[in-house]
């Protein structure tokens, strides 16, 4: 087997044994289960007209998905944070890196394994949530698959960044930075949309720069777009300052940049690990 895949499968095996995926999924099942009740109330409320409730359900779903994306991204950061630094500290990596394997293979292998776990989690969360909402209210987002892809990409972004940081920093520091970075990314997006709505160029610029430096919010907005039914887009044209509204599909140059961002951070992580003296 290819050394990269050996490390990837080892990473997955360890995570499964640690019951990580199981823990995340069981929490998710509980939360999504509770949300079923909420969506049911919303869909069958006497005080809302059927038109209103047709808008309320997708909007509530977007809010709910925001919370899930937050959990997803932080889980990604949490599982990646200890991957290199803790294993160096404990000595587990010593006998691995002295085998006929490149450091880059160790790092990419870990990245692949963690990303596969994250993908599994993202798919599980999306399937569960969309199924529940569909059953309770009859609403299904226009493109559930792309929603899942963008939510995964958002988590993978934090995962990759955390992996880079973990080649140099202890796990706790990486975890804290992960949370801070996610918050900053979201705030940057909010500031940017306020700037656009009120035509304040300084704020708009901050938002733009933020979107490029840290594409988490950009990817989140891509996910929002595929959560919005046509009726919501028609209705909500005026509320551009709403941070839970996406005006358009993600532009392909931006997606290209996101791909580059992944590549750059991953290369930086490999370089940092290769330079590190153990």
């Amino acid at each position: 087997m290819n050394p990269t895949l050996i490390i990837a499968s080892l990473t997955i095996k360890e995570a499964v044994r640690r019951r990580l995926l199981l823990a995340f999924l069981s929490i998710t099942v509980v939360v999504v289960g509770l949300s079923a009740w909420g969506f049911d109330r919303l869909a069958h409320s006497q005080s809302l007209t059927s038109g209103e409730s047709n808008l309320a359900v997708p909007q509530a779903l977007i809010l709910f998905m925001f919370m899930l994306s937050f959990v997803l991204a932080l889980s990604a950061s949490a599982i990646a944070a200890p991957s290199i630094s803790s294993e160096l500290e404990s000595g587990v990596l010593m006998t691995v890196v002295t085998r006929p394997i490149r450091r880059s293979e160790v790092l990419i292998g870990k990245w692949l394994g963690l990303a596969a776990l994250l993908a599994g989690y993202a798919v599980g969360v999306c399937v569960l949530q969309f199924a529940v909402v569909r059953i309770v209210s009859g609403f299904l987002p226009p493109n559930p698959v792309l929603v899942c892809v963008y939510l995964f990409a958002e988590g993978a972004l934090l995962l990759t960044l955390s992996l880079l940081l973990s080649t140099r920093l202890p796990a706790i520091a990486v975890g804290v930075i992960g949370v801070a970075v996610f918050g900053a990314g979201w705030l940057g997006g909010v500031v940017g949309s306020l700037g656009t709505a009120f035509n304040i160029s300084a704020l708009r610029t901050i938002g733009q720069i933020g979107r490029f430096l840290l594409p988490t919010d950009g990817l989140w907005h891509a996910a929002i777009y595929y959560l919005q039914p046509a009726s919501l887009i028609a209705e909500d044209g005026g509320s551009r300052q709403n941070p839970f509204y996406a005006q358009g599909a993600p532009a392909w140059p931006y997606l290209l940049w996101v791909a580059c961002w992944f590549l750059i951070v991953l290369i930086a992580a490999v370089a940092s690990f290769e330079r590190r003296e153990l």
Partner: protein
Amino acid sequence: MSQANWAEGTAVERSAVDGEAGLHGAAGSSPGTRPSQSAVSPAIHTVALTKRFGATTAVNSLSMTVERGEVFGFLGPNGAGKTTVVKLLLGLARPTGGDGLVLGAPLGDREARRQIGYLPELFRFQALLTAREVLRLHCRLLALPKHAWEEEVGSALLTVGLLKRGNDRVGTFSKGMQQRLGLGVALLGTPALVVLDEPTSALDPVGRHDVREIIRGLRDRGSTVFLNTHLLEEAEHVCDRVAVIDKGTAIATGSLDALLARQSTVRLRVGGLGEGWWSELGRFGRWRRQGEWNVVEGIDPSRIADLVDALVARGGRVEAVIPEHQTLEARFLELLSER
């Protein structure tokens, strides 16, 4: 008289060994030149290998050669630079000066690592895997053929005495058991070079004995062993040659015998001579009275026979001559204090 004969025999043996090996600080070879590569390259060859951490010089211009098939002891006090040298040899750290070859390849070479087994000073394994799974993981990383895995894993477990615990998770192992597992990992795939960094630091007396047996086994099958230790009796038992390093500098290199044979101590019991008879024999060494024994310290082993002759010529009745080998510990402390 039989004791005197025995002493004579020892002296002859000793001098034979004495002639063979040079005992010298290892800074001899010209620094800066890249070691040459040959068909049967030594297992380890370094030239002026140096590693600095800021102001600390952990390894200072170390030049040494470890031949294939040798058990080489690398001795030194805490902080001498032993672990740092091992990390340089394995490519875990980069030298700040000098260079070296391991199994004929540059330091840290990936293909050469296929031939190297390594037990780190800080050993830890994936806590959630079983011992067998850890060993299988390393078989995989070594790209051993799949049909050989079970055989390799089984024999490694047997050698390090973990056969019964093979299916238990490593997280449930005691520290000594983890070190045993580490040894097992280092033995996989019949490596040409086995690097052990204080392999008995967590082991009980039985484990220490086992490690000696393992090292002898490795030598018998032709592997080279590089043994880092500050436990001198460990080195004394298994090493063919040793280097003593202190503050990053090799202060003595050579065969154990040569290292110890420069001088030794003889205990004598002699009758038939009056008081103070040894005052004329000061040329042999430093004399000391200890109960009914006379002790000569610092005597050249080849002169023990002459000493006995001199005693007999003076009419002494030599009742016992007991040459005492200098312990490695004594020699070690002496070497360190000479600096």
